[in-house]
């Protein structure tokens, strides 16, 4: 059964015809060509597919596209400002927080969700928050450092803007 869904993706309106069983991640990757959102486990375990829906981090591999009708979706493609990386992306690069990079989009989307609610997270809070975001390469240490640095840079740029 086909259905039309209309939603906002990275600030722009998007409309697509999907089946009831189409996942949000399939809509993003296959229909809209936004392949920055990855699929690792496809079973809610790994967090490679994390996007924001109405400002909250969710796993797009377990949300039906139809459930995103009328909602505001943000993917990793919507994070940078043109060619200027977001401070959190910058921090991942500077802190060597990725190797193969497969987990990185999900890590960054989770990190931004954390910092939105907790602008100055402790190492422990970062580690707890990353439960459900798996990385096979880095051992997490540099990801934690990057999120701390990214949060600090975001506090700095917010202060500068005020």
């Amino acid at each position, binding site marked *: 059964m086909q*259905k039309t869904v209309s939603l906002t993706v990275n600030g722009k309106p998007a409309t697509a015809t999907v089946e009831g069983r189409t996942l949000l991640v399939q809509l993003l990757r296959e229909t809209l060509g936004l392949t920055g959102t990855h699929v690792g486990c496809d079973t*809610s375990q790994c967090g490679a597919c994390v996007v924001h829906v109405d400002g909250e981090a*969710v796993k797009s591999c377990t949300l039906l596209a*139809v*459930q995103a009708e009328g909602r505001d979706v943000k993917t990793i493609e919507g994070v940078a400002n043109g060619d200027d990386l977001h401070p959190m992306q910058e921090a991942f690069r500077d802190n060597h927080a990725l190797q193969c990079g497969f987990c990185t989009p999900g890590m960054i989307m989770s990190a931004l969700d*954390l910092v939105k609610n907790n602008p100055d997270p402790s190492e422990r809070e970062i580690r707890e928050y990353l*439960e*459900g975001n798996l990385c096979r390469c880095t051992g997490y240490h540099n990801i934690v450092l990057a999120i701390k640095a990214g949060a600090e840079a975001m506090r700095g740029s917010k202060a500068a803007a005020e």
Partner: protein
Amino acid sequence: MTPFELVEPASLGEALALLDPDDPAVRPIGGGTALMLMMKAGFFEPRRLVSLRGLGPGITGINEGADGALDIGAMVRLGQLERSPVIRRAAPVIAETLVTHSNVRVRNVATIGGNLAHGDPHMDLPPVLIALGAEVVAASPSGERRIAVENLVESYLETALGGDELITSLHIPSQRNRRAAYIKVTARSADDWPALGVAVSLAVENRAIRAPRIAIGAATETAMRLPKAEAALTGGASWRDTGREAAAEAPVIGDHHGSAAYKRVLVGVTVERALRRALAGVEIAG
């Protein structure tokens, strides 16, 4: 996943009419976090899913009555409960339990209705809600009824709900003057599914324990109260002896988180610890 029809009714009446008591391939969907895994594994192949997303404010709100009782709509997400100032004040044990429940991304999507209707015994909230004396409000074409959370799940993934019956809300009686604690025991990482969950709730009057409720999950076929342990505690048994009574009474079964013998030992120790936690800083006679 096999193809299915996903419908999004705008009212409770419409939703009930779209359910089909004679067809197990027609199910309601809350957050879909449990359903989607069963569908991807081919364990469940729906013909129709009835989304409860459009059902309006009655099913999405958290309300506190003048007496302190809470009414929580079935579509309230676990993350909303965890962050709600009302829940943190009126039933803080729920917010504390949610911190190690699955993870932030799952809690942002999973609903309390779906959580309770899922009927997996390895869950954290059922023993907590049983200890708090909570009831679900269920609606079907023949009307509305209340079901105590301890009577909701009948066996593995099987509930007392009819095929055309929906949980519309959760009612938690006032917890004023009561204290509660939940202890989750995990066999692997700290936020794994529980190997055992123990929840206790009780009142203290004149330095004596009144009306205790002790519930366990993840170690028995369904989450349940332990009435003999409760009676022992009311009768003045020590926390350790109450734990022993609980371990003797609970129909513990083993699973891949631990054998029955291991879990039985855990029940005794954890009941004692949960009582100690709930009563921290309180003086009890005797």
